[in-house]
């Protein structure tokens, strides 16, 4: 069965990288309300799209990263993430598969069983916009805080694989989703801000092509 163990390397080492390069932080679990089947956007639009802007602060003040682009989340088909700054790259997350392509080069593919993390994040988007929060509980402990229309969703990984990389994920919004913050276990913070969001029920031709790579 040694061969089997060697095959596991593929799956585990990705996440081991995260914990091997840095210091661990304690998980911030200051969020209160425990939810079960809450719906943040009751209209459950099949298609949600808009623009994103990511800023990532590197721990130890070694630098920061910024990127911009368009995104699209479909209720069942998955997610498209098109970066236009500082360089073009396309990312499509569909059922069980992550495909990435830079400047139109041959795409690289990664499967959910090799690395569950991107798909856990896809689930968060679909949970917020379309499918309700219940499915998220398979990978996360979930907390939801509401104040008038404003809401904060806090997620701390319960899946030990994700736990090795991510400390907390926080999503904030009001009548629209506003920002998503990923805090990794080494203290690096990645902040994604969303803007010009539209909710529709059907995909346009252009949107359909966004989900293909």
């Amino acid at each position, binding site marked *: *069965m*040694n*061969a*089997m*163990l*060697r*095959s*596991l*390397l*593929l*799956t*585990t*080492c*990705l996440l*081991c*990288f*995260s*914990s*091997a*390069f*840095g210091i661990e932080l304690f998980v911030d679990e200051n969020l209160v309300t425990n939810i079960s089947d809450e719906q943040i956007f009751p209209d459950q639009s099949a298609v949600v799209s808009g623009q994103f802007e*990511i800023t*990532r602060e*590197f721990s130890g*003040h*070694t*630098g920061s*990263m*910024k*990127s911009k682009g368009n995104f699209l989340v479909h209720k069942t088909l998955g997610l498209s*993430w098109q*970066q236009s700054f*500082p*360089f073009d*790259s396309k*990312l499509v*997350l569909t059922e069980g598969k*992550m495909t*990435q392509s*830079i400047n139109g*080069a041959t795409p690289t593919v*990664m499967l959910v*069983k*090799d690395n*569950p*993390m*991107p798909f856990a*994040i*896809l689930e968060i988007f679909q949970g917020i916009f379309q499918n309700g929060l219940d499915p998220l509980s398979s990978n996360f402990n979930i907390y939801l805080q509401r104040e008038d229309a404003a809401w904060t969703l806090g997620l701390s990984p319960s*899946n*030990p*694989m994700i736990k090795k*990389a*991510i400390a907390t994920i926080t999503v904030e919004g009001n009548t629209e989703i506003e920002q998503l913050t*990923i805090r*990794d276990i*080494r203290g*690096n913070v*990645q902040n*994604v801000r969303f803007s010009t969001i539209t909710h529709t029920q059907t995909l346009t031709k252009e949107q359909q092509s966004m989900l293909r790579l």
Partner: protein
Amino acid sequence: MRNFMTSGTNRWLALLAALTVVAGLSLADGFNIGTNLLDLLPTQHQSRLQSLASERVANEQSSKVTIYVSAQTEDVLSSKIEDLEQTIDNSGVLFRNNFFHDQEASVNLYKNFSHQFFSVADQVILESDPESLLNTSIADFFNPFNPISPEEYANDPALLLRRFMLSQAIKSDYLHIKDGRIWSESNGNPGILIPLNLINAAYSLDVQKQLIEFLSVLRVKWPELQFSYTGLAIHAAKGASRAQSEISTIGVGSLLGIILLITYVFRSTRPLVLVVFSISLGILFASFVTELVFGVIHVFALVFGACLTGVAVDYSFHYLTKQHLAIPRKTPHEILRAIVPAITLGLLTSVIAYLALAVTPFPGLQQVAIFSVTGLSCAFLSVLLFYPDLSPEPAQPARHLFWAHSALLGFWVKRSLQVRLLMTGTAFLALLPALVFLAPDDSIRKLQPLDPELVVMEDTIRKATGFSPSLRYFIVEGSNQDDVLQKERSLISAVTAIEPDAILHSVSNYVRPRAEQLQSYSLYQKQILPRYQDYLSRAGFNQAYTDAKYSELQSEAFRPLLLDDWINSQSSNNWRFLWLENAMNGRSASIVLLDSRKPTEYFSQLKELKLVDKADEYTKIFTLYRERVSVMLLIGYALIFLLLHFRYSWRKALLVVSVPGIAAATTLAALSIFGIGINMFHILALILVTGIGIDYSLFFAESRGSPTPTLLAIAMSSATTLLSFGLLALSSTPAVQAIGVCVCIGITVSYLIAPVAYAGEVRT
């Protein structure tokens, strides 16, 4: 002699009691039973290196157990799994393989050597187009869904180490990790695979028993879960327990038969007690002496040695029938005197046959020899020393058995010696054509049938994982560590050249030879470093940090990852066994395991690279043993003939030997006619047949006066032997069955033709 024995019996008994206590105590203290088949090989048969490698692989395989547990739904499985894992952790038999931990250790080990370990694909791209690697990597770094830490990127902006570690993995389409567990759904239902290690050595019968008990506890405790498990230890345990339960089922039946037979014939239970006394004494002292000489008794010697009871009862029966049928009545010492020549010759011939085994270099056969010689001598002495006093004159004569018919005697003894010789000679010639077509079959796969339930389980696990355990390997030898690593690399390219699908597990997968590491290091210096600052600033690192990091990397001197670094790291937990340090006079060596669907012969085209096949190795042991035992058996016959020649005319000596000879030849001919390939166990059974057959013919050859008591003695002996060992023919364990079949045929034939050796007058 008579006075000595009469007056001395009390003293003998006291001595015997004391010796029995000593032997019993020392055996009870720590009866050391070995079950490892490889222990049966002569030491000079393999080089030290070969036996070390073979031992390593065997230990590795035998210490591993895999449990695959599945359920109707994922929820059912998820709700039980923690409890199950806890039960395993508390079992005291098994511990779980902590692969996560080992993986972390791996990353920690390599992260200091990230500039000299590249995947094969990256090595090529790095030469021609380093930019494309850097571009893919920076996109990965920007991917918010799979965050790569800035620390990792700054250290390795081409993400070479990450890809090297991924390339180490064998891609499995079947498995995925969830919640830190290995899941598979390829059998339809969701399942979890639990790789385990045995806490104690797998070759202990106790450990095997504990393991089987623990596994059955799991099935009882969680009836809603389906368990499959695999591992050499489980196979061994199942095989042993099946053989044991079969032997005990058959044994109880035959024991009853033997008890009834003896009490029926002698109309008393005292003879039964005497027979049991002789046999127990034989086995007790035989075990004691064997353990004293070898320090361990191999289960092989124990099982085969126990068969000598079949020979040991001959002496008892000869005495008892003579005593019960003596007309006129004789004193016990007169009886003894009458049978001493026959049983002494019987013992001597058996000792000769067994001692022939002792001079072979095979530890298993030596043990059998010592065990049998001691056991037989004890049984012989028990008759000689104790029977006259323990067996008073019987009140009634013995009953006759219908198959101990005088017609059998009449058929042989009314003919002259010459005619009898002619008849046996003709019989032998008639058997010859069948003997010519005798074919051997030593395949271990046939000798050790797999438990059908385990086969199903193993199939389930194979379907769930896509892997089956590898029992084939190459041995690589070199003048030093680096030399071995280099040779491993060339071996791997030679093998993958003829079999691209082969998966090889080697130390050099983890520790590349020094030259290769240096080459990678130079490539990194040449292709990545000049672009380093550019990519780091594109990724968003500030100037000060980038410059500092750059000069740090630039000034970094080449330092190879050493084998010892790896060996001492936890990351080598699962593979450390491959390295054979200082195997031969300071030379280094290693094992390279092969996973491939191609048969072993396919790899013979590699010429000097010899693939070792574990299953073949066992088969070779059996072949070697079969051949040696056959030769020794023939030599034994020659020696017996020589010995008998001193006492009898050559004609009569030939007749005496012809009884076991024809019995053995008939057995072999029958096997040949039914197309059964002969193996070591058949030949070992023939030794038993020879030992018993020669007794029968000697008892007749030494018979003075009426041969009727002798006929009854051998009728009793053959009936008990058939009841005990003959019934083993019903066993479904091929080795046991082989002995049973041979004993059945051989003893029946011996019984039928034994009177051929009778020399006295016959009144019919």
